[in-house]
């Protein structure tokens, strides 16, 4: 019996890795969770969480030094001084962009569960049936009914607040009480409903912020500082939710600074024996052994681990026999929407900072409609009142100008689209053996782009946003669009897709790697299509379902 032996290994500690660790340990498996980055301890290490805005020297802005150090992160909102330590050091861990791909990573315990957007939506039947109906890519091996109970299980544990809206396109879940819409959102919702009746819907966002106390976690305090780490544990993260549950079993070992370099594959048994890691601090190599391996390193890095594994059997790595490993890379395309001004409601304001907004679920290409593209998009947005520091037209300078700054400005309403990206075989990531990271490991090359279908969809995404806001009474509506860049949605998916046939997919309907039945991939890599809803809740449900299956198979002696 070799040392370093466990029942299960979980690679990665983000949303899906945390869930895998919780489920496997609760089912009695001695489990080690391997995280490539540093440990971040719940509450204690949320170093900026209790600072006032004025305590940040640049008030949350970005310095030239930060811009130089983070050439990718600087491309969008995540680069700021308040949570810089949660984002991956790009110089240590570079990647190759064959085409521009904004890859925003978090290498630490908790991964991006600490910084995620928390919007949590079920997918519907139409999403799981989409590839089959459109005759593209490959069919999902599961349907909504297969995940239905697991969605509920995930929601009840994670704590998702939302309203039961009764929509087929956006199935209701086991929600905590919803957050409130503000006065302007309620008004826009009413006009929206008057015009669109039941053809389009305007609902409060469903978010993984708890609105009632839950599992020793305090309900949301409306600080809207989630991305700093929540001292109340009010939003779902590995640290606030899955890790404490897994630790409570006594079955979990967490090992930070553990870069998994490969899964050790046994040709005779056609199963994985364990994994090899590189200690990121000491550069020493270690092996860990287990009966099952869950790969939850995030879509692109899970593909990287598989590509580096069993290369003596398959040149392209473990799971590459189908020719699909690393391919079909998807994201949600965004950066398109509209906004405008709301008249009235000057006597109303909001108190508390709600870390949530409104959601307009998909309505295109449903019920027989056929646009010049397939699939659809949803919108996220909200109403807010302009604060101080706004431009005050009548006043230029002086004492009155100073006083006017403490008066609230006018109400505005804005929203942005999240569009489905199709799974294109040629959108892919592969090992770039010409470039090495700080640890001498080959980096990923990413070659993916939005295509015709996404570009056509974006025209609707922009025009519909303007039209809907105008119908809903918003004034001076301005629409906007940008050149679509993949990665920017931070919803990477598809690089080890599920399917019905080992010839066209990497995983089966239980997230098992066809080529190694005791290896499971349950993060974004597993996704066969992208839908347009935020995907993390689906990863949670898939992970819980796969863990349940894995343990049953283990007990039956099948793996």
């Amino acid at each position, binding site marked *: 019996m070799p040392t370093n032996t466990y029942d299960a290994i979980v690679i990665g500690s983000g949303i899906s890795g945390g869930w895998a660790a919780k489920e496997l340990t609760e089912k009695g498996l001695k489990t080690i969770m391997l995280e490539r980055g540093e440990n971040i301890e719940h509450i204690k290490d949320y170093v900026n969480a209790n600072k006032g805005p*004025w305590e940040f020297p640049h008030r949350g802005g970005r310095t030239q030094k930060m811009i130089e150090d983070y050439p990718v992160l600087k491309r969008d909102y995540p680069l700021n001084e308040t949570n810089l330590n949660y984002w991956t050091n790009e110089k240590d861990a570079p990647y190759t962009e064959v085409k521009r791909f904004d890859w925003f990573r978090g290498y630490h315990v908790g991964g991006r569960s600490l910084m995620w957007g928390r919007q949590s939506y079920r997918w519907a039947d139409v999403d799981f049936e989409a590839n089959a109906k459109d005759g593209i890519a490959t069919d999902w091996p599961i349907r909504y009914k297969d995940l239905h109970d697991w969605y509920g299980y995930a929601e009840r544990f994670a704590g998702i607040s939302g309203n039961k809206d009764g929509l087929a396109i956006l199935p209701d879940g086991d929600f905590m009480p919803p957050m409130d819409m503000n006065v302007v959102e309620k008004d826009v919702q009413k006009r929206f409903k008057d015009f669109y009746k039941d053809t389009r819907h305007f609902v409060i966002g469903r978010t993984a912020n708890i609105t009632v106390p839950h599992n020793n976690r305090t309900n949301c305090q409306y600080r809207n500082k989630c991305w700093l780490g929540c001292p109340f544990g009010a939003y779902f993260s590995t640290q606030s939710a899955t890790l404490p549950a897994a630790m409570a079993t006594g079955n979990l070992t967490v090992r930070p600074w553990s870069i998994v370099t490969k899964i050790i594959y046994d040709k005779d048994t056609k199963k994985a024996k364990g994994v090899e890691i590189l200690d990121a601090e000491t550069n020493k190599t270690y092996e860990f052994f287990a009966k099952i391996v869950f790969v939850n390193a995030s879509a692109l890095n899970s593909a990287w681990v598989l590509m580096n594994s069993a290369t003596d059997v398959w040149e392209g790595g473990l799971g590459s026999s189908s020719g699909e490993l690393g391919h079909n890379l998807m994201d949600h395309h965004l950066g398109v929407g509209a906004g405008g001004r709301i008249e009235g409601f000057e006597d109303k304001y909001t108190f508390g900072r709600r870390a949530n907004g409104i959601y307009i679920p998909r309505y295109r290409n449903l019920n027989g409609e056929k646009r010049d593209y397939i699939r659809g998009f949803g919108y996220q947005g909200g109403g807010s009142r302009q604060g101080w520091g706004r431009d005050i037209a009548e006043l230029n300078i002086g004492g009155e100008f100073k006083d006017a700054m403490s008066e609230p400005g006018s109400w505005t309403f804005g929203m942005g689209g999240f569009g489905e990206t199709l799974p294109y075989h040629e959108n892919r990531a592969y090992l770039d053996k010409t470039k090495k990271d700080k640890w001498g490991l080959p980096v990923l090359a990413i070659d993916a782009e939005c295509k015709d279908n996404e570009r056509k969809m974006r025209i609707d995404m922009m025009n519909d946003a303007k039209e809907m806001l105008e119908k809903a009474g918003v004034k001076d509506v301005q629409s906007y669009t940008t050149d679509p860049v993949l990665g920017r949605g931070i919803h990477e998916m598809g690089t080890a897709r599920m399917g019905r046939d080992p010839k066209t997919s990497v995983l089966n309907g239980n997230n098992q790697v066809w080529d190694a039945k005791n290896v499971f991939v349950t993060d974004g890599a597993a996704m066969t299509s992208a839908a347009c809803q935020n995907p993390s809740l689906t990863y949670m449900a898939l992970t819980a379902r796969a863990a349940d299956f894995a343990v049953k198979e283990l007990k039956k002696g099948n793996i």
Partner: protein
Amino acid sequence: MNRRIAIRNMALILGSAAVLPSCLGDKNNSKPIVELKHLQLNGDEQQLVANLAETILPKTDTPGAKDLNLHLFAFKMIDDCMNKQQQDDFKAGLKAFADAADAKYKKSFNDCTVAERTAFVNEAEKDIKDKAKDDAKMLTFYQTVKQQTVFGYTTSQYFMTKQVVYELVPGRYNAMYPAAKKEAV
């Protein structure tokens, strides 16, 4: 807490957070208020920015830009967050601004009275609105100082706790809050 004491404490806190005053020799007429890493300004130039900030947000019955060290905040932002080109443009714009004031009043902006400074800045505001003058660098310089002064003011502890209400932990969301009670966001 007594408001004056609070403000004084605030000034101390802000002051101590800022860069230490320089003890290095003067390159020009007067000693810089602070030594910056990238943006090289002499004492007169720094004073001009401080006086300009005070003209934009003057002391009234509430503290002004100088009381709140907003000029130090502006220096820090410009020094750390702007690139070389933007900093060069800022310096060129500052010189153009100083020269224009010299030409108009036959004395430096720093030596002008509050009324003269105010009149001069109001003219710059008018030029921006009317797009009357083609002195882009001077106006960009002015707008940069104004932007940072206002940003520094509205994100200062004084403003967020004394002028409006800021709660680190609101604890609840009131979607129909009366606007008369101001809350910081």
